[in-house]
């Protein structure tokens, strides 16, 4: 205890964010189940759907579904579970007694999830184009990246809403998983069209269906009613969930 001042001023925000980001990226890298669910599963899905008969959906739709799964897994399950655990165990409390703005604690975690979505998207599109034998233009890569960031934002907001409304990590985990399964099933079944036209239209208005429609256009499909539904619903879901998540969020689990 010899080289620091006794009455320090507030540290620069850049230094604070750098410290938080370094720690949060390390936490992500040291959580293997997150890497598996966020990265490996979408890639396996993309590769698996490239084998055999492939006429049930366009490659863009399949890659879009995989990317939707990845962004949803990271944002809705990974983010919400980690926040709930850190809140219950007192990690947030420890961070909040330092001269760190509360928004910086959350911003760092959100940035880490967005970067993870970008990595997952780049990998997914590269692997998808090889496995499905399709070639994409650079502007399509950019469009897909934009849709991924939009999707990641929507699912992070959904995750925030879940940790805003529920206190215990067990409840957050349980509700997150049930919602995850419902959304992914409705998205997949709607995209494939096996449950009829009514369900396909319904699915286009769900988070996964809306996002998959946007991915399809980013991959080169023509703009359709489904795309319009997606373009409306993704921001709507994001804004509503962000409002709920911020309004009802508590830093303590008690």
């Amino acid at each position, binding site marked *: *205890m010899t*080289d*620091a*001042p*006794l*009455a*320090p*001023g*507030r*540290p*620069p925000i850049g*230094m*604070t964010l*750098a*410290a*938080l980001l*370094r*720690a949060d990226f*390390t*936490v992500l890298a*040291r*959580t293997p189940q997150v890497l598996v669910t966020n990265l490996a599963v979408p890639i396996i899905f993309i590769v698996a759907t490239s084998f055999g008969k492939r006429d049930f959906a366009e490659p863009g739709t399949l890659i879009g579904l995989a990317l939707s799964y990845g962004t949803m897994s990271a944002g809705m399950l990974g983010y919400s579970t980690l926040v709930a655990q*850190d809140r219950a*165990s*007192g*990690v947030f*409390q*420890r*961070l*909040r*007694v*330092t*001269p*760190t*703005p509360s928004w910086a604690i959350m911003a760092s975690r959100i940035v880490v999830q967005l970067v993870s979505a970008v990595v997952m998207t780049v990998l997914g599109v590269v692997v998808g184009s090889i496995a499905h034998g399709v070639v994409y233009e650079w502007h399509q890569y950019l469009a897909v990246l934009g849709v991924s960031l939009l999707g990641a934002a929507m699912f992070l907001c959904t995750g925030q809403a879940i940790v805003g409304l529920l206190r215990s990590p067990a409840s957050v985990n349980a509700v997150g998983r049930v919602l995850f399964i419902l959304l992914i099933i409705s998205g997949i079944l709607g995209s494939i069209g096996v449950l009829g036209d009514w369900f396909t239209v319904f699915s286009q208005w769900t988070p996964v269906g809306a996002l998959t429609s946007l991915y399809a256009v980013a991959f080169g499909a023509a703009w359709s009613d489904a795309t319009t539904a997606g373009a409306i619903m993704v921001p709507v879901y994001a804004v509503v969930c962000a409002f709920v998540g911020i309004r009802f969020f508590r*830093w303590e689990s008690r």
Partner: protein
Amino acid sequence: MADGAPSRDDVLSVDGLVVRYGSRVAVDGLSFSIGRGEIFGLLGPNGAGKTSTLSVIEGLQSPAAGTVLVDGQDAIRAPLAAKARLGVQLQASSFQPELGLEQLVRLYAGLYGLRLSGDGIRDRIEDAGLGDERAKRFKSLSGGQQQRFSLLIATLPRPLLMLLDEPTQGLDPQSRRQLWARIEGLRGEGGAILLTTHSMEEAQAVCDRIAIIDHGRLLATGSPAALIAEYREDPRVVRLARGEVTLEDVFIALTGSSIRD
């Protein structure tokens, strides 16, 4: 260091603090101040309002009324400036379970604006007697080691005011001695310490001044010796004392002998 209007030397000044949880009043108009280099004990039975008071100073809780100044910085209106002057050891600290001790020190150094080299980080961990554990994660440390690491993080910025919430709870005598040596070291550099404890012997031995609170109200304040002298003849104390009057006799006489949860 009089308890009232803040003086220039006050590191902490709490005035008319009120904390409510719904209709329950946890802290009811509490006022006290702490000067530079002073070790101040906040004593009270369970539920007396100690942790609520600390929570407001730490910026974790908003009060219903009152002011809190840390080195002249308003801890309620400008909490970050106040927090930059604080070192905090919470009653139950928790750190990210995925990070090792070195990574945690690097993180918290960054949050206090300290640039520490790898050697600097290792030296700090070594100083805390955790050199062999530096690659470990917080959860895998023993209780005493966890307390030492929490204290290391709390003292990292060489704070002007340390807040210690029951710092010796669960520590063996050796760890307790080491903790007090580190606290004395901080005091020697001009820092002040506000601590809560249930150990009256400890408070009597280490605190320059104490405040006894109950139901969120200040019952008595002064040096342990002054309080003992003041209440020595009090009939409640006389009834309790077995031989030499102790701080514990005064404490129980003022707060009652019923058990609190």
